[in-house]
């Protein structure tokens, strides 16, 4: 049988099997499982067939609940059906999973196991999701590696058909799902041999068919439900032997044997660890090392977790075992122990002989590193006289002291293995090149290969660290390359040397490759002193190459990947140089060939120029070795920060979050806001430069800045006292600002250099047209001056909110943004709206934020862009889930209303004591800013009075008095939430008539998970899950909301009409009912130049693609039609807009005929909608009262 090697990640390994063995695949995006769906969609689009020659139908649903429902239905009619998911997605599938299992229906769900959100969301891996599914009745099969993700996927598909029990096949999110590894692939011959056609026929026969009708899904009463539930038992009893039989058959076919439980270690072990998932790799290394040292230790690998075969478990455990440690990668607060621990305890208890001593511990939550040293600590704990019954490992629990101590000393990795780490930026192609290197080495040499990639939490200027291992033996190291272990270190961006100690991971004598603008004679003197010290102390073999220049000369822009990949092969000597170059060339042709000969040619030119530029650096004999470190710089920046930021946030910023003890972290997931200001990432190479001589005071630059890095302030001239020499201001224009000055100021370390401000600046020099009032200039020349300027700028007082017109562009920008410096993509189309919201209402807003981009750049540690004003007020922010955000926000409003009602009742009851103040509070008009400010003052006075009033009523009023000041609730989320997964809840909230504001940041795609299609995706655009181009029109959510009649609805595009946008936000806030703003948010997933995204929005409106409108029930109340179109009849064709976007242009290239057809339909969509809207602006919704009476 076939046994070819291939190099893939865990997701692809599992998806290949699933796609080959399915007819229907229902999908929905969720990290880290999305790639399984993406692969399946792409394969089916390309016509790849399943084992039976049929192209599986891959269908995206509106949620995981929808996917599970579709799977259930498809199974009911007899199709071979599968799905993929993770985390909360799996939770949404649970109800259907009970049904599918209860009906004994064969299917496999492939799960990239991921943390469930509790005190915080985490995209990373652990078993909390799959553990929540363990009572659904699904069998559960755990893969511990990429190889197993393929192998056990096959076993699961085979076993489900034979047993009729549905299977949940899972592997660890990221650690396995995203690890690239060399595995032995299987061919269709293996699959054919594994899948019994008779069983498929039986599966079909059990299906619903009008030819042999049956009823399934009955409702049962107490008389029979119980018995019927027990009738299923024999099927579960049979599962273990069926699975083992399938494993045995697989072993015969491939030579790779698995068992329900596998044992590794000393045959007469006394101490045994039990676990499942990727931790097996690290533990096996620990056990083998300890056994080699003579220790009697072992490990039981759990593969079939449900049904748990107690007999098989007891049988695998050496009879000599006296102590067992069970490791769970999940936490079940309040339980006696975690699930696997309890299973093991029960299984041993039920045995014929006395149970060994069993302890249980948690490890690896949210992909926390789990290393052989930690596994060893667990085994060592078993040797203690009184081992901890329940423990954790991998963290420092200084609160409940549950954690085990461990030391990495003595756990050096084997010498024969090459370990390479690469520091790069997301945008420079480092990870892609390393993936390719793993593939080249895996596919073309006898070496085993592994690649794992670590990303930071930012979407702009994000850093990546690639961990690659190559060696003669299969690689089981399921953990990062540790300090002092890397034999090769590459830093692909010179400036990273200033922030990260890239040499910490280098082993003595390792090779260090640096992408340097300085050649071998100059490089040394430009290195930070801690890098010099590291090179000397570790005696590193130091090489430089100016990859940026070589790539640029070859016409590759900033894509330095192939240049540095060539250097890696040249220096690492993994392959003979010529062979390596030939391999890289072929890989370039394979990867880029379909994009065009020129792409290949330019990359090859770069590769061919590389080795001439690769230079070894001779370390000067009298090297100046410094003593500072990156941490020193960081600490100097943080010196002014609050204590928590210094102690906790600062550690995370320094990349040392793993060292934080339990006591450092909040117990309930509550964090301070206002922390992004301390990051000072300084990622922009260019920053805006303001020329006041031609500025026209429009404030557009400040409005559109996605990162709040351009500020606009109008102030009295006296405020300039003490200004630094370089501080620039000008006299403000306009009758409202006579005698005032203004400054447009950049925050130089917070600017990403996106250039959006320059794009929108309307003020051009009369003498030189390219010179605007805002130009981008090289940052280095401006940095020190602008730092001082920005610091001073922050000290200039803001005007009181009630003194500015917050419903105007200029007025809104005179108020300090309370959303600043987010890590969103440079030029993000969403964040300007949030910043505007924070300026208009930030001191009284609570934000309910759906999971998605805005929850990540808004709430992904270490910092948050949400911040506070000088009084300490600012947006309060929370993220519940993806699907429930509308309901979550409504709940906030309900709670606020309840507390306000309570407060008013209490004020009324206390009127005798409160007197006029109480009356004023109850009668306060808070429709305007001044009224709100006055009410705040009154509540402040109220608190003072209450302090002197005794009694329960006064105490209760103190608790709810804040509710007397108007609080705004803004429900914020993306289109994936609003149009798809959260639409049911959104619709319910639209119908609620409560004072709620909803902001949909419509990027027309699931941006956060990598660009999957949503129902907001327009026709004719390609997206993941719609790689053939979306064939249906975008949902008109505005129309749906308008149908309620009492909902304020605005469709805005800031770049198309800034005034309308600002006004719409103000009107939405003023509307005392439900308001919905649909905000056009250009996204990198559109394939556009983000620096011009704002001006591009003009074309979106001009083509009618994104018509601007406001539907205000207040207009109806005034006897006017409710709908007002704020954009003109289309003046350009859709094509003129669309051809500038990659999402449309890609399809036009790849499939011109289909693109042309879809584009024509999309134009018709636009024409039809405009035709409808034009009629609607004439329509009065409100019926004449007399007509009603007549009826």
């Amino acid at each position, binding site marked *: 049988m076939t046994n070819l090697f291939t190099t893939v990640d865990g997701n692809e390994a599992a998806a290949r099997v699933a796609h080959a063995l399915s007819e229907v695949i229902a999908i929905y995006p969720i*990290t*880290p499982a*999305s790639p399984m769906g*993406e692969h399946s*969609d*792409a394969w089916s*689009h*390309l016509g790849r067939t399943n084992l039976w020659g049929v192209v599986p139908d891959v269908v995206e649903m509106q949620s995981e609940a929808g996917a599970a429902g579709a799977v259930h239905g498809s199974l009911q009619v007899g199709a071979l059906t599968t799905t993929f998911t993770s985390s909360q997605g799996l939770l949404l599938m649970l109800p259907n999973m009970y049904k599918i299992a209860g009906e004994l229906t064969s299917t496999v769900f492939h799960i990239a196991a991921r943390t469930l959100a509790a005190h915080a969301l985490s*995209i990373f891996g652990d078993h909390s999701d799959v553990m929540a599914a363990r009572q659904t009745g699904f069998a559960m099969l755990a893969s511990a590696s990429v190889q197993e993700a393929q192998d056990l996927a096959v076993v699961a598909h085979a076993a489900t058909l034979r047993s009729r029990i549905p299977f949940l096949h899972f592997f660890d999110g*990221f650690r396995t799902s995203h690890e690239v590894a060399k595995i032995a692939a299987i061919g269709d011959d293996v699959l054919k041999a594994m899948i019994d056609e008779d069983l498929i026929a039986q599966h079909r026969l059990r299906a619903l068919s009008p030819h042999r009708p049956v009823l399934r899904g009955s409702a049962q009463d107490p008389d029979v439900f119980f018995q019927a539930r027990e009738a299923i038992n024999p099927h579960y009893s049979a599962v273990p032997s069926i699975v083992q039989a399938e494993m045995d058959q697989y072993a015969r076919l491939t030579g790779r044997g698995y068992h329900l439980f596998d044992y590794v270690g000393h045959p007469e072990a006394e101490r045994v660890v039990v676990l499942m998932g990727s931790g097996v790799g690290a533990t096996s290394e620990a056990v083998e090392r300890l056994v080699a040292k003579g220790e009697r230790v072992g490990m039981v690998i759990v593969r079939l977790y449900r049904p748990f075969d107690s007999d098989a478990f007891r049988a695998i455990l050496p009879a000599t075992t006296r102590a067992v440690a069970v490791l769970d990668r999940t936490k079940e607060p309040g339980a006696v122990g975690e699930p696997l621990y309890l299973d093991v305890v029960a299984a041993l208890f039920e045995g014929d002989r006395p149970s060994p001593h069993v302890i249980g511990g948690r490890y690896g939550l949210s992909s926390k590193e789990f290393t052989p040293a930690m596994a060893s600590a667990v085994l060592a704990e078993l040797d203690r006289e009184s081992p901890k019954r329940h423990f954790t490992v991998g963290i420092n629990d200084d609160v409940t002291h549950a954690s085990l101590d461990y030391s990495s000393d003595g756990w050096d990795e084997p010498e024969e293995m090459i370990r390479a780490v690469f520091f790069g930026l*997301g*945008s420079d*192609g*480092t*990870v*892609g090149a390393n993936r390719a290197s793993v593939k080249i080495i895996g596919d073309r040499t006898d070496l085993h290969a592994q690649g794992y*990639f670590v*990303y930071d939490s*930012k*979407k702009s200027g*994000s850093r*990546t660290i690639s961990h690659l291992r190559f060696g003669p033996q299969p690689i089981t190291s399921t953990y990062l390359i540790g300090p002092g272990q890397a034999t090769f270190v590459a830093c692909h961006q010179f400036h990273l040397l200033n922030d990260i100690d890239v040499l910490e991971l280098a082993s003595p004598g390792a090779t260090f490759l640096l992408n340097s603008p300085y050649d071998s004679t100059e490089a040394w003197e430009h290195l930070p002193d801690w890098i010099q010290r590291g090179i000397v102390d570790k005696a590193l073999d130091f090489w430089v190459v100016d990859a940026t220049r070589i790539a640029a000369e070859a*016409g590759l*822009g900033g*894509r330095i990947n192939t240049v540095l990949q060539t250097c890696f092969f040249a220096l690492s000597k993994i392959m003979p140089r010529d062979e390596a170059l030939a391999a890289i060339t072929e890989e370039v042709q394979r990867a*880029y060939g*379909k*994009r*065009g*000969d*020129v*792409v290949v040619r*330019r990359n090859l030119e770069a590769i061919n120029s590389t080795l001439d530029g690769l230079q070894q650096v001779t370390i000067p004999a009298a090297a100046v070795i410094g003593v500072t470190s990156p941490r020193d710089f960081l600490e100097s920046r943080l010196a002014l920060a609050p204590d928590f930021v210094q102690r906790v946030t600062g550690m995370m910023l320094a990349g040392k979050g793993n060292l934080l003890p339990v006591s450092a972290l909040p117990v309930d997931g509550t964090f301070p806001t206002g922390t992004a200001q301390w990051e000072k990432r300084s990622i922009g190479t260019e920053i805006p430069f303001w020329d006041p001589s031609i500025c026209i005071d429009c404030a557009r630059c400040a409005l559109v800045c996605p990162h709040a890095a351009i500020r606009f302030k109008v102030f009295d001239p006296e405020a300039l006292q003490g200004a630094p020499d370089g501080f620039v201001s000008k006299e403000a224009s306009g009758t409202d600002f006579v005698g005032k000055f203004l400054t447009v100021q950049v925050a130089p370390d917070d600017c990403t250099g996106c250039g959006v401000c320059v794009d929108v600046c309307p003020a*051009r020099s009369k003498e030189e*047209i390219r010179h605007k009032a805002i130009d981008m200039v090289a940052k280095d020349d401006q940095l020190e001056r602008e730092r001082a300027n920005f610091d001073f700028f922050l000290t200039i007082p803001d005007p009181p909110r009630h003194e500015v017109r917050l419903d105007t562009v200029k007025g809104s920008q005179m108020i300090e943004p309370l959303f600043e410096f987010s890590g969103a*993509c440079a030029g993000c189309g969403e964040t300007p709206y949030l910043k505007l919201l924070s300026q208009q209402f930030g001191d009284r807003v609570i934000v309910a934020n759906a999971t998605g981009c805005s929850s*990540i750049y808004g709430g992904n540690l270490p910092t948050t862009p949400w911040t506070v004003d000088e009084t300490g007020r600012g947006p309060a922010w929370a993220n519940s889930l993806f699907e429930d955000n509308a309901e979550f926000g409504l709940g906030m409003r309900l709670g606020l209303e309840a507390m306000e009602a309570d407060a008013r009742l209490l004020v009324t009851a206390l009127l005798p004591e409160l007197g006029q103040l109480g009356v004023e509070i109850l009668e306060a008009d808070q429709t305007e800013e001044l009224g709100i400010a006055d009410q705040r003052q009154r509540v402040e006075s109220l608190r003072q009075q209450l302090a002197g009033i005794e009694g329960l009523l006064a105490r209760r009023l103190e608790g709810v008095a804040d509710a007397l000041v108007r609080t705004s609730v803004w429900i914020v989320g993306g289109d994936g939430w609003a149009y798809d997964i959260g639409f049911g809840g959104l619709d319910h909230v639209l119908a609620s008539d409560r004072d709620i504001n909803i902001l949909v940041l419509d990027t027309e*795609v699931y*941006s*956060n*998970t*990598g*660009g999957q299609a949503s129902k907001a995706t327009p026709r004719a655009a*390609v*997206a*993941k899950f*719609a*790689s053939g181009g979306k064939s249906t029109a975008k949902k008109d959510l505005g129309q749906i909301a308008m149908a309620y009649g009492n909902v304020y609805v605005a469709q805005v595009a800031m770049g198309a009409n800034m005034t309308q946008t600002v006004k719409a936000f103000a009107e939405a806030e003023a509307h005392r009912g439900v308001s919905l703003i649909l905000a056009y948010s250009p*996204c*990198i*997933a559109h*394939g556009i130049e983000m620096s011009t995204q704002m001006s591009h929005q003009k074309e979106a409106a001009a083509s009618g693609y994104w018509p601007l409108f406001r539907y205000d029930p207040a207009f109806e109340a005034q006897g006017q039609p409710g709908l007002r179109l704020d954009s003109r009849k289309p003046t350009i064709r859709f094509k003129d807009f669309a051809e500038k976007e*990659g*999402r449309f242009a*890609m*399809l036009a*290239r*790849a*499939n*011109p005929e289909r693109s042309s057809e879809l584009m024509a339909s999309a134009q018709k969509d636009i024409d039809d909608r405009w035709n409808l809207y034009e009629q609607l602006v004439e329509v009065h919704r409100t019926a004449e009262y007399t007509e009603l009476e007549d009826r």
Partner: protein
Amino acid sequence: MTVDLRTNYLGMTLAHPIVPSASPVTADIDHLLRLAEAGASAVVLPSLFEEQVEHEAMAVHMGLEWAKDSFAEAADGYLPDLDDYNTGPARYLELIRAAKNELKIPVIASLNGTTTGGWALYAKILADEGIDALELNIYLIAADPNLTGDQVEHQYLSLVELVRRTVEVPLAVKVGPFFSSMANMATRLISAGADGLVIFNRFYQPDIDLNQLEVVPNLILSTPAELRLVLRWIAILHGRIVGSLAATTGVAGAEEAAKLVLAGADVTMMASSLLRHGPERLRETVEGLETWLEDKGYQSLEQAKGSVSQAAVADPSAFERANYMRTLMSYSPQW
């Protein structure tokens, strides 16, 4: 009596001299079929621009690579990787194939390169597709103050020589009029290997948007008023170069075509007029030319060709500067 309209162009015998030139009118097979149906004697496909071909491929590449691997949840980037992007000259080659398969008239490809290697590479790619002739559309803006006229001319000549060495198909060179000595340059282009000249190409003409204060690309359709320049140089070059002469720019219909034939054009190319009036204008032009020749008693096009060229007219100075003063003097305001 019918007039024999046949003409020889680049060694090919065409049924008549009216040929749709490289432009959007020849950009797809449907248009080509309609032009053929309207009687086109040959077609020149739109120019394949090396720069555009390469830019598009790199744009696809950068679009797919940009933002890839920058965020853990979007490691594969934000756009799906499709099966084929049809970058490079693939679509152009498809057009050639379709034209060759479905048309019974000569198909002339047009190439506009930017690099030396590019001219040779794409000329070979096009020639390998079996085109009947290749038109090199040379477009150099000599904006560098350090670049001398000699160097510019050398660039033209060397790339014609390069392409000539690379391919064997009949070669036309389309140039602009901006040479110090057009006649000399024309002769040297023929010597460098061109089988004929196409005069003159119409450059991209930047304009200024007075509202936006931006430079905007602009190419306005030609009018018969632009015929004169071409007419002059066809007349001057006819009989003086050993190669074909194609006239382009300003050919609105039969009248202009007739003038050009009289001046010595082997072929007159049309684009703007076809864009304005549709393919039927081509038929009308052919018929009109035939009628005119017939009315004038010509038996064949060859008979008329060059009959009013500079070499043939009574007052050769009419095509040169001496006529300039006279013309200016005769032009007086109408108000």
